């Protein structure tokens, strides 16, 4: 990623999170290119929030995101898959009323 930025004049990448209504979590919507934070916010508005419902936007420099790698997959996630008692799935949450 950082090599690519050096190689051309492309602006840096920002991840965009959109909050569809107040109280709801910000959800990842996609990414935009922008030269700085203020324009990242502006671009995010134009690309992701103009048509859909949104009450708040977050933009985060992509390079600031720390992600697990494919090789983490086994040790990170497999231990959870065969222990059903760990899953909070024995009661129902009505998502539609959760944030009212």
């Amino acid at each position, binding site marked *: 990623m950082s090599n690519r930025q050096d190689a051309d004049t492309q*602006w840096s990448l920002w991840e965009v999170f959109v909050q569809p209504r107040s109280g709801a979590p910000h959800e990842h919507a996609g990414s935009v290119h922008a030269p700085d934070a*203020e*324009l990242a916010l502006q671009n995010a508005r134009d690309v992701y929030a103009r048509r859909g419902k949104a009450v708040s936007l977050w933009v985060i420099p992509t390079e600031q995101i720390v992600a697990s790698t494919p090789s983490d997959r086994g040790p990170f996630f497999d231990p959870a898959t065969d222990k059903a008692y760990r899953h909070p799935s024995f009661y129902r949450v009505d998502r539609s009323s959760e944030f009212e």
Partner: protein
Amino acid sequence: MNLPDSCDRSSTVDYLLRVADERLILGHRLSEWCGHAPILEEELALANIALDLLGQAEPILDLAGSLEGQGRSADDLVFFREAIDFRNALLVELPIGDFGFTIVRQFLFDAYSRLYFDRLRQSRLEGLGAIAEKALKEILYHRRHSRQWMLRLGIGTDESRRRVNDALQELWRFTGELFEVDQLEAQLVEAGVAVDRAALQAAWSSEVKEVLRELNLAPPDDGHQVGGGRRGRHTEHLGLLLAEMQILARSHPGAQW
């Protein structure tokens, strides 16, 4: 539709065309960036603003058409008028130039547009205030967009700064027209229908000059100002714009898609 007292019908129609055409023509100009903007995100931003401007023009043209009472729709007014019948200020019909030119024009226009629509909300013409109220939210965003770009291009590189400054010198002489009040408009201002543009100039000037000061750019001299757009005296550029904008509707009248 009821007109406020002492308000002449054909003058009012003419006034509405002035307000609408400015937005229609600038919207069309901005749409020319489709496929040509420097980066995808900015292309979407410019297209969004173009669509906002067209969307603002439409209900005002509808209003003009219904007030005129000759059965002309907004589409008829857009596609079947000649250049001499268009009432926009010259500033908005100039070709898009480079990105710097486009941004400087938007910046000069948006500052004016915000002040204008803020006042237009108080118009006594039925329906016009509500249209202005709705448009104002979009205009506030447009103003933010062009202002942010001004700040970046103005202090960006030597080249971006030079282009912004060139555009400023080029465009300044078209800004006086935005605040020119003629006889027709003076009467409508009196009747509470039209905005007194002359009264906005000081606020516009100080808003624009504040940004220029921040960029350490000297505001151009007011010098010789050109105008005449609202009397139908346009630059040669408008005819070419209209040819492109109108050809489809004129070649296939009534076509739907």
